[in-house]
């Protein structure tokens, strides 16, 4: 089994993550950190869900998708449409049912995205490699153009006035939910099938794995969580604009997966946090950060991060790595 050494059953990864979660909650409760730091942290949580869900599609199943931001946009816009326009929620503290309703909106958005992923996936998952990558990229741009022309959600002006419903607690719970579900998915029979396809699709087929079904299932699951993260993020920043969700965003997410190591869920979590904090930490250098950021990325990539994470965070070595 090639599964995550960090988040294994006896792994210290879970305990560390739990400690980090409790610490974040405590700091928030006592007001130890500025709201700016808290905001960055919460954006980081959304990115964790995005990175982990793309890791399921790209890292574990080996299907190269550049359309993740498209699904994210679907979830973001639809959940915000529900919470703002259908239910007219304006304040998080209005009633104890608001958080529940909010989570329901998020899941509705995610379900819509999963439906779209099912339709899209049934068509394009027959493509392989770079052709799949470009088809998903095309889907992403189609979503952006569609949103630009949907007047009801603001079109090119952006969708603003979205209620701020994402609290640290809700985001933490949803992030935990997503990571645990995707981790369990990867550890299940389906996850093993996914890995078999990653290693060798033909061999997997010959052993009776219905590769198309397995790919479709992981694609739909990954997109579901991408949309969930989109909804979480949009109720945090309170403004949605089609240009937030172009393929550039998809590539940013892919970057987190690659930096964290393909198929390495713990790596994705860590990389998502690092890559959210990095641009903020570079803010002191003003304009120079636009140059520093890609430079650091190139250096990280060429230093072989997979190896780094594997040896740094696990007792097992990267032996037998393909």
């Amino acid at each position, binding site marked *: 089994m090639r599964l995550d050494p960090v988040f294994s059953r006896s792994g210290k990864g879970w305990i560390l993550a739990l400690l980090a979660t409790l610490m974040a909650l405590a700091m928030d409760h006592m007001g130890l950190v500025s709201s700016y730091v808290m905001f960055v942290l919460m954006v980081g949580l959304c990115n964790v869900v995005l990175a982990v869900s793309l890791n399921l599609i790209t890292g574990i199943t080996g299907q190269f998708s550049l359309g993740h931001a498209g699904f994210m946009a679907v979830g973001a816009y639809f959940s915000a449409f529900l919470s703002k326009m259908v239910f007219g929620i304006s304040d998080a503290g209005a009633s104890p049912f608001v958080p529940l309703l909010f989570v329901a909106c998020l899941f509705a958005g995610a379900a819509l995205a999963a439906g779209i992923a099912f339709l899209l996936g049934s068509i394009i998952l027959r493509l*392989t490699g770079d052709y799949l990558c470009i*088809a998903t990229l095309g889907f992403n741009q189609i979503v952006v153009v569609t949103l630009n022309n949907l007047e009801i959600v603001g079109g090119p002006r952006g969708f603003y006035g979205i209620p701020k419903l994402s609290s640290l607690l809700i985001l933490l719970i949803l992030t935990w939910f997503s990571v645990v579900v995707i981790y369990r998915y990867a550890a299940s029979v389906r996850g093993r099938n996914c890995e078999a396809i990653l290693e060798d699709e033909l061999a997997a087929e010959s052993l009776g794995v219905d590769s198309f079904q397995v790919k479709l299932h992981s694609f739909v699951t990954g997109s579901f969580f991408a949309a969930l993260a989109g909804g979480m993020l949009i109720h945090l920043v309170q403004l949605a604009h089609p240009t937030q969700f172009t393929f550039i965003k998809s590539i940013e997410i892919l970057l987190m997966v690659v930096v964290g190591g393909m198929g390495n869920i713990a790596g994705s979590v860590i990389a998502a946090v690092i890559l959210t904090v990095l641009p903020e930490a570079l803010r002191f250098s003003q304009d120079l950060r636009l140059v520093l950021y890609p430079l650091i990325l190139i250096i990280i990539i060429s230093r072989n991060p997979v190896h780094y994470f594997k040896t740094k965070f696990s007792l097992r070595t990267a032996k037998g790595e393909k």
Partner: protein
Amino acid sequence: MQLVNGLQLGAIYALMALGYTMVYGILKLINFAHGDLLMIGAYSAYFLVIAGLHISIAFLAAMVICGASAILMDKLAYKPLRSQPRLKALITAMGVSLLIENGSRMIPFIGPNFRRFPDVVTLKSFYITENIVLTNIQLFNLGLAVFLMIALSLVIKKTKIGIAMRAVSLDQKAARLMGINVENVIAATFAIGGALAGTAGVMTAITYPRLSPYMGIMPGLKAFVAAVFGGIGSIPGAMVGGILMGIVETAATAFHSQIAEGVFFLVLLLVLLVRPFGLLGKSTKEKV
């Protein structure tokens, strides 16, 4: 009229797509930074023209500068990753692209603002019929693009380096065994691709005289799509794909400017459904 506009936009895409497809054919790498070579070409021509040189010299110089930048890009960023998984090189390409864009934004004499490309050619229009107007710029762009494509095909077919390129793209190991210096071939590929992108850059600058450090992103992306459309790795495919996509985009813009980009990608999806390896791409049978 729209057909002519489409043809000239398509010519630019085709020149860019050739660079993508050649690099892909040899390295199996999608060079995301290719679009930025277009920007470099446009800016180098801009400075040369401002310095008082003739536009034809600016054209040649832009080709040389872009070719050199492409080789440099390969040597610094991609060469250390040759033996690594392809995805890493791809992400590095994205990083290089960001670096070039933001880097040139930082340089004070390029700067973040738009710059206007000077009118080097006085615009002349020829009326063929009442509705069809050709401008001399369009004719010039089309002519140059066709000339370069023919020249490229000849280079690939007849010259020693062209034959070496095809050999490397077929089987790198075998080519190396036959005494081909693979690194030189890769450098030559980047140089030719870069020079074509530089030409496309100057052509863009003459036609749409607005320069910015980010001007290469969209043409770069669309040219890449065009290369996939034609079947990535195939040189005639890139030419056909580029020109067809140019026509599709212009037609869709004329019909409804807001949704043009959506139509562009929709056409791509449809083509990939019917022909999963692009129009002229070869389908590869999976081997066990």
